[in-house]
């Protein structure tokens, strides 16, 4: 670490900044990000996809991947969103969206569902975030705004319990500031829990030594680090 430049907690890749590949001509949209996350989920994994954008990952899992989706409201082997006649008010995902059941499904109650999560039985969960720190701290449940009504749901349980926590978000907020930060200013969801961060601009590995760039999209690693340094 001592020989590498640390800008806003961001390190270069395995070798140095110039060795980090730029793998797309421009920033990714949410579908491309979801495809990237899907690519990195090992076949046969048990996976929880957080509400919002992470749900898109399901559309990009290759046929025959054997990935089994968990929804924390009490089901394994959740299928795609229900359409038309498939809609059943008794069958929803964690975002309360009607979904379907795949063969081999199992239902269980909330204490069992969260025991499964907290007990480390899920291989991967994919979450959205307001902020992620270079060391993997996650802030995704509360902006801390005085008039905001806090709502945590299962975010802390997932962040704490899944073996690997992937985060999917845009790298920069609307005001241009980086959401990958040296240290979160928003209220935390979990400490040192995120292992990989997928953004529209780049993918990072996060860990005790900080964020390590894996690949960038539409800009070089050097440009990105400079931008992060200013953010």
């Amino acid at each position, binding site marked *: 670490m001592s020989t590498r430049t640390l800008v806003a907690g961001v390190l270069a890749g395995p070798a140095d900044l110039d060795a980090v590949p730029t793998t797309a001509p421009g920033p990714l949209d949410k579908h491309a990000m979801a495809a990237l996350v899907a690519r990195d989920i090992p076949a046969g994994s048990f996976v929880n996809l957080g509400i919002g954008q992470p749900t898109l990952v399901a559309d990009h899992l290759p046929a025959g991947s054997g990935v089994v989706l968990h929804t924390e409201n009490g089901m394994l082997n959740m299928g795609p969103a229900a359409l038309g006649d498939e809609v059943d008010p008794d069958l929803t995902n964690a975002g309360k969206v009607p979904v379907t059941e795949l063969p081999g499904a199992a239902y269980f109650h909330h204490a069992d569902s969260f025991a499964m999560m907290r007990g480390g039985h899920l291989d991967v969960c994919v979450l959205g975030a307001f902020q992620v720190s270079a060391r993997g701290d996650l802030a995704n449940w509360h902006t801390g705004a005085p008039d905001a009504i806090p709502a945590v749901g299962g975010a802390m*349980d997932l962040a704490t319990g899944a073996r690997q926590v992937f985060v999917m978000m845009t790298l920069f907020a609307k005001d241009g500031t980086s959401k990958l930060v040296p240290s979160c200013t928003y209220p935390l969801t979990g400490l040192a829990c995120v292992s990989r961060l997928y953004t529209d601009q780049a993918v990072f590995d996060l860990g005790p030594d900080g964020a390590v760039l894996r690949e960038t999209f539409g800009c070089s690693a050097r440009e990105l680090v400079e931008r992060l340094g200013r953010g």
Partner: protein
Amino acid sequence: MTTVLCADPDEAVAGVGDGSTVLVGGFGMAGMPVALIDALIRQGATDLTVVSNNAGNGDTGLAALLAAGRVRKVVCSFPRQADSWVFDGLYRQGRVELELVPQGTLAERMRAAGAGIGAFYCPTGVGTPLAEGKETREIDGRSHVLEYPLRGDVALIGAYRADRMGNLVYRKTARNFGPVMATAATTVVAQVREVVDVGALDPEAVVTPGIYVDRVVEVTS
């Protein structure tokens, strides 16, 4: 004691006292015992603490109970939803207290109440505002927060079928909090879509045994 089959939801919620802690099943509307909540509004108990995953949707069910001014405090994991305007308004006016609990800890605290566990060390929420002021302990190299049981005076839950002994089965993800809440309250009331004869439920598939269920009412929608 023997499960009572009630004639209607009003009989099923009779006797709920002011100041009670009421566990209310459901995740969003799935498994929400709407007829029981409506009956509770008619019954009139007030100054209630409501424990539920959410804080009401739209203007019915839990939202209607809140709107009627019967709820002093909500213990839940996810009050803010697209259609939680009743709670949102009361909360912003300071007319309802909120205890926010991570969803799994909410379930596990009720499970502890039902299972006779005095308290448990839980890794969820360590280092976050929701662990502030709580006792912590390092176990096996990992920080944990000490969490206490969460008990109800009454649980109102929705299930799919009951037999006349109070054995319950649920349907799909509407199972959610029902089985846990049924273990954690002094009086457990289940709204079901159908009451069947004893022997009609598969003993291997009963999710909530009748021992946990005090009152059952059939509500055909």
